[in-house]
């Protein structure tokens, strides 16, 4: 057991493993798990996997995919990893249209290190390093990665989903499946942002955490499809 009660990772892991089985790709999948709570992923998934240094998952995935274009490469990253230390790798892999799938778990905090401000921490949100709440004048506003990547030409599929309630859990599974199917079809770069709970570091109960996603995160991080080029839908949310 590595994950805390009420953590969203376990739900997302389960969805991912279900999709891998449904698509029958267990034998051709390689997952990249970088630094943060997501590094624990290979304990729970029976596919080949590799670690990546903090922030470098997109570069490792690039190397894997370029070397094995017929394999399914999944980069599973948290918010600190993908949107702070790994922003450059994220942006450039997306901009090259690398044909792999990114699952971006956004829980608005650093989990593994004990609850520091993430690039996605909301304004006013209290963390270990924003004890008085995130001050936008001092450290900027939270990054909306779907919106940022949606400014690039190359990505084919960008969607933001959430696992705070059943309805959205089902949508999350569909999004993961679509992203992987696009990769299998050779369509190009897909990016699925999953809003998730971190009750331990938010200092609330699992139930309250789910409620906080709905009340605080979803209004700032709009759910929905930003781009689905393969199905002809572009910027549906705009």
């Amino acid at each position, binding site marked *: 057991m590595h994950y805390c009660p009420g953590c969203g990772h376990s739900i997302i892991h389960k969805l991912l493993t279900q999709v891998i089985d449904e698509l029958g790709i*267990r*034998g*051709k*999948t*390689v997952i*990249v798990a970088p630094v943060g709570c997501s*590094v624990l992923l*290979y304990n729970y*998934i*029976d*596919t*080949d*996997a*590799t*670690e*990546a*240094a903090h*922030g*470098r998952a*997109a*570069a*490792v*995935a*690039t*190397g*894997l*995919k*370029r*070397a*094995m274009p017929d*394999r*399914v490469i999944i980069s599973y990253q948290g918010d600190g990893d993908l949107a702070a230390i790994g922003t*450059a*790798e994220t*942006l*450039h892999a997306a901009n090259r249209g690398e044909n792999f799938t990114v699952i971006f778990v956004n829980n608005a905090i650093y989990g593994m290190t004990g609850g520091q401000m993430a690039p996605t921490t909301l304004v006013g949100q209290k963390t270990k390093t924003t004890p008085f709440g995130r001050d936008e004048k001092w450290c900027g506003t939270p990054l909306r990665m779907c919106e940022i990547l949606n400014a690039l030409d190359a990505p084919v599929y960008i969607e933001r989903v959430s696992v705070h309630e059943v309805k959205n859990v089902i949508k999350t599974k569909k999004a993961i499946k679509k992203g992987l199917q696009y990769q299998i079809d050779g369509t190009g770069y897909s990016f699925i942002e999953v809003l998730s709970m971190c009750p331990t570091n938010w200092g609330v109960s699992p139930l309250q955490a789910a409620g906080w996603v709905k009340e605080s995160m979803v209004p700032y991080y709009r759910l929905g499809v930003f781009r689905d080029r393969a199905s002809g839908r572009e910027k549906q949310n705009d």
Partner: protein
Amino acid sequence: MGDRVLMRGNEALCEGAIIAGCRYYFGYPITPQNEVPAYMAMRMPQIGGCFLQAESELASINMVWGASAAGKRVMTSSSSPGISLMQEGISYLAGAELPAVVVNIMRGGPGLGNIAPSQSDYYQSTRGGGHGDYRTPVLAPATVQEMAHLMIDAFDLADLYRTPVIVAGDGVLGQMTEPLVLPEPSQKKLPEKDWVVDGAEGREARVLMSLRLSPQRALEELNIKLKKKYDEIVKREARCDEYKIDDAEYVIVAFGTASRVAKASIDIARTRGIKIGLFRPITLWPFPEKRLRKLAENRRVKAFIDVEMNMGQMIDDVRLTVNGQKEVYFYGRTAGMLPDEDELLQKISEVAR
């Protein structure tokens, strides 16, 4: 034997890598190694390989991780500041025991320094430049021909010991053009890559990682395993070259470009009756201590002169090896100011007086 060709050092190393079977190159521009990515950008598509310009050296070395994890022969190149950026990745590669070849065409430092030839990354290369308890084999060519030939050995060492390998050249070797005979592909028998993560079809899933959280002793066990491997490398892989050493009373120790200047000074010194020769490490780590110790123990040898294109780094290894048995003197220039034949000659005269 192949035909003699005329090539620039930075391009010769690329051809050496290609002959070694390298089909993946990831890199980022930095002087004085820019001919490497330019050459690979042209050659890789011709031979069905992959050249990709990364967004940074951090990305380069981690793309290298990806292709290596897939079981492919892969390399990157850079120069000193860029190699500093790669150290995190090299440490991870060492920890996960992934083979890769990293070429460092050294330039002057610290910091941005300048773009001129230097050997001032000796410490960084030979001590395990990143964090943690590890070493990397370091090969130091002294000619354009060696730039090509040592690439064959670098890839073999990387695969044989599952380790990143550093090829340490400098701006002179990278930029200069010399005739050479290209190497033949290696015939070395190498272990099967039974650790590759390419999809777990019909087998148990594999994980490549440097992380060892539990049980409590897991990381120490990895470190002990790595140490055993490094001991094996020290025992088997040390290499050196010698010049006019048989009757030498004085021995210059120098590698790479510095060794070429030393040869010139040695020839002149010998016309003046000074019996002096050259000891040239080809592997900087493992340092060829066994042979050097023999020279230190030899009663004929009176003193050593360590010559480097830095302020004196390899001299630590020379002193450790000589172990106080003989005097070790130093002469060095750095950051593009090459060792000067006449200055070195003067040093030799002082020492031999």
